[in-house]
């Protein structure tokens, strides 16, 4: 939001071209844990596997560190889909973080479904540090599904009402 005006013209063109389904490319944010999925994505890289370029990774120590609000914020920022990925059950670097995350997201998912979000826009996977190939499958599949749904116009329509007003209180506090 804050940097929209600083993008290169090329970038802007690219994104402008992607407004409608014509030439539109899905934008997906992935929240992944540092120990399994991030490393699994590294392995996909070192194995030179190819996948679609629509996903942007945000790294956290553990899926248990992912607050559902982060996901809400990603949608607010224009994401068409969100992926959460971490260690397989039993493999968590912090022993139980992914188990807690599993419960939290099982519920959050239901809530999002209940308010009318298509669940292909909110997906979950276990990808271990050894599963480079699985990471590729997951990314391609998530991307294809979100592509099939088209832009998340419902959510993005909510934003059109909105004009960014700098949060003066926040600025004050930081100063």
């Amino acid at each position: 939001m804050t940097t929209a005006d600083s993008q290169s013209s090329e970038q802007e063109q690219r994104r402008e071209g992607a407004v409608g389904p014509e030439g539109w490319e899905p934008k997906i944010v992935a929240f992944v844990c540092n120990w399994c999925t991030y490393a699994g994505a590294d392995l996909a890289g070192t194995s030179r596997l190819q996948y679609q370029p629509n996903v942007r990774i945000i790294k956290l120590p553990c899926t248990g560190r992912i607050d559902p609000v982060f996901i809400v914020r990603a949608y607010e920022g224009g994401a068409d889909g969100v992926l959460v990925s971490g260690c397989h059950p039993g493999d968590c670097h912090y022993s139980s973080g992914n188990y807690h995350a599993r419960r939290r997201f099982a519920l959050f998912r239901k809530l999002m479904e209940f308010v009318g979000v298509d669940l292909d826009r909110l997906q979950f996977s276990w990808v271990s540090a050894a599963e480079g190939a699985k990471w590729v499958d997951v990314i391609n599949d998530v991307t294809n599904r979100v592509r099939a749904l088209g832009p998340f116009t419902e959510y993005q329509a909510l934003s059109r009402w909105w004009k960014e007003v700098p949060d003066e209180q926040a600025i004050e506090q930081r100063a």
Partner: protein
Amino acid sequence: MARIGVFVCHCGKNIGATVDCERVAGEAAKIPGVVHSENYLYMCSDPGQLKIKDAIRDKKLDGVVVAACSPHMHERTFRRAVAEAGLNPYLAEMSNVREHCSWVHQDIEDGTAKAIDLVRVMVEKVKLNQPLTPIRVPVTKRALVIGGGVAGIQAALDIANGERDVILLERDPSIGGHMSQLSETFPTLDCSQCILTPKMVEVASHPRITLLTYSELEEVDGYVGNFQVKIRKKARSVDMDVCTGCGVCMEKCPVKKIPSEFNVGLSMRPAIYTPFPQAVPNVPVIDKENCIYYIKGKCKVCEKFCGPGAIRFDQEDEIVTYDVGAIVVATGYSLYSVGEKPPGSTIAGYGEYGYGNIPDVIDALQFERLASASGPTEGHMRRPSDGAEPKTVAFIQCVGSRCPEKGITYCSKICCMYTVKHAMLYKHKVHDGDAYIFYMDIRSGGKNYEEFVRRAIEEDGVVYLRGRVSRLYRKDGKVIVRGADTLSGTQVEIAADMVVTANATLAQPDSQDVAQKIGIAYDKYGFFSEKHPKLAPVETNTAGVFLAGACQAPKDIPEAVAQASGAAAKVLEMFAVDELEREPTIAVVNEDTCVACFFCKRICPYSAVEEKEIKDRDGNLIKLVSHVNEGLCQGCGLCVVACPSKSIELLGFTDEQLFAEINALAE
């Protein structure tokens, strides 16, 4: 305003081929707060690092983003370089434009666009990075080893020989563990006690080792480098300093008929006893449950005959406390019983084997005692019911193991090999006898193990029958074994003189209590969990606590010893420094807004969250808040998410940083 430097690496062609690095650097320069941006062929090379250092100094950078490979590869490198230039290393971050970008995309437009996004994300994060210092904790250079079996003995000796103090804790009256009960060991057939006893003696005489036998762990407090342990020294009723170990008390004790634990019920012992003649320490204990004096209030025969006057009927349990820096857990295993299911257990016995009530059906440990030269039969093969030499012996493997029906799904690992050994020992002792082994698979992976199996079959004539045994019952003084051989597809019935069951290896029945006291994880069978199954098999999830031997999973002697030495090396590694340094990724609580609901405390996998009282100057409680012990916190961030009032931050991954990252991707 921030002063961020962005450094884009080509990694030769590795990144440069599918990411236009110049354009990435150019775009980065336009991000508000970025005051320096450049690209270079190899950022991790010395000249590359120098560019970063120079820019830090020249442009007075307060944050660095290196767009290169995975941080798992070079984060340390760049943080070190940044630190050398005088900037706090935690103000540097990496954007992974190689593994996550150039290597996985072919189109240069796609790769470049994604790389720009990835850089933007990290720039926004670094703007909010705070200088952090690694957590430093002092180390008490004394170790506690729990369990005096072969693993514990080995770990204690290795640490002590590394010139560090060790407390070796054993709950039985003597150290030695299961290994001291064994006759010979596979695959070399050397005598178990002959190789173990010297080590036991060395433990007793080592100046660096404090040996606490007949003692149990009460409580563990503190964290890595700074544990406080409480140990209960049970009353022996014998003064260790006075007793000479002459053994007269044991001879004179009028109680004679207590089944010997050491001989697994195959012989009897008195109420005052040492478990076996080579016990270390060679000081008896009085078994209060069976001692006539303790039951009826009179007897004291042992006291009358004790020359040095070492008997102390009034001795009481004593609690001692030690500060230790590291703990090695080596509590060993227990053996499955075919007897009836104990109340509350999920593990049932074998009704089809008569629940252990058939006299000539013995378990593997009993066979070890029968075969041992120092055992109740002095090594002669004599079956328990009538003392006759058994001429037909059936050995049954996988009793309790690989048997979900009775509660245990795993393979006990050591039974295949010790059963071969048993059959071989039997054949060596009874030349005209027949040995049959009922097995499902022969798992003989190990140095010289398969050769050992072949030797038993080819040279000693041991007969392997592939199948489980469905039923055992007694008929005319024999044990009828109803089994099968699936290779020939036939039912097999053997009228055996004796049957030996290779019972499953279980976790110690109280392993969960021990784990909870120490604060380590355990699996559903009660075995302790290692930190990582591949790369950290000796460590636990609790820093400063290490595992050795069969308390982690079934293991044979060389594996237990190897892991014990590994644990000792880990301890000595820790003790090589005066202070431990840990990543500063830890959680901190905002006490002003904390409402003391303690969801954080409930969810923390490391029990790092404590309740803290905030008091006024007069000592009156104002409120309760939570507090994160930085020695215990591992930085997972579970508490941060669980906190309803958002009063906890995870340094290095603060909510503000993460929102900034997400916002950087917004349109």
